[in-house]
């Protein structure tokens, strides 16, 4: 059976010599292709520049939304970023596909800095691994109930009471 539709999305974050991050996201699909590239200032996680291009789209009107990307310059990647990006780039006057690529870039930034602490935890085995997770859980209230691994009843939550 032939595919009726295919989508390929790729995003990455790379370290720049000046310590900032260069983040890219691109999507290729049957009727749409676009790229977003942005520089994120470290340690503030502030978007310092952004560029984008819609290479292929169903209606030419989509390309008129490219200038909206500049509204994300100055935003800090942190709580509320999804709403801000959807508001400035997506929405009825914008392009939700472009907003999605900006958000994919933001996710890469977060994951880029998640790799290191996670790598430290995952270098441990057995009970030590469990203890390492529990240490993070006691330090960060946001981890509790963030997913099934840190939900009530999970072995990683043993001895950690959300009520305390």
């Amino acid at each position: 059976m032939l595919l009726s539709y295919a989508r390929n999305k790729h995003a990455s974050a790379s370290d720049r010599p000046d310590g900032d991050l260069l983040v890219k996201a691109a999507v290729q699909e049957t009727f749409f292709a676009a790229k977003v590239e942005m520089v994120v200032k470290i340690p503030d996680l502030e978007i310092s520049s952004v560029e984008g291009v819609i290479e292929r789209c169903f209606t030419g009107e989509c390309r008129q939304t490219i200038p909206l990307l500049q509204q994300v310059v100055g935003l800090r990647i942190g709580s509320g970023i999804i709403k801000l990006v959807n508001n400035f780039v997506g929405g009825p006057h914008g392009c939700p596909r472009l907003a999605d690529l900006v958000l994919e870039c933001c996710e890469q930034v977060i994951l880029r800095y998640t790799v290191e602490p996670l790598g430290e935890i995952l270098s441990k085995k057995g009970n030590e691994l469990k203890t390492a997770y529990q240490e993070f859980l006691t330090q960060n209230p946001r981890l509790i109930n963030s997913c099934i691994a840190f939900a009530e009843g999970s072995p990683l939550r043993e001895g950690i009471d959300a009520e305390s």
Partner: protein
Amino acid sequence: MLGFSRTKWVGVERPDPETFFAHGILEDNIYGMELDVWVKTPEFVITRLEGKMRRVTTPVCEQALPVLKNARGLSINSPDLISTVNRKVGREGCRHLANLLLECCDAIMRCALYERWGELKKKGAAKDPGAYLKEQLKIFPGLQNHCRTLFNA
């Protein structure tokens, strides 16, 4: 130096005229997972989901696979789809699996949205893409005002 990279791929098939089937793959430096999603028309309701975790970070992560059932019965047309999937599959299961599920749902929606365009083109009856999209709002009313092209359509 590349610090992180993520690739998501989704392919959509039409095993029968009433069914859309999406196969999605997510691979990055941390996670590796796959998802199969079946959606029935005309309601565009998710009827079946099957997942596979290839690379995860905790011994508990795989328990998120049965949580996928929380998405059964949801319509990909629903305006609350993103928040519901993020809550019922993401927070209660795995947020990366929820992310892949939303990617699959969006791919199915786009496939359905553009499907007739290909047929019209073959027949030489395809004219204005903007007018075509506005016509598709009958199938996807939730897309009204979704973007610049569909604003006040």
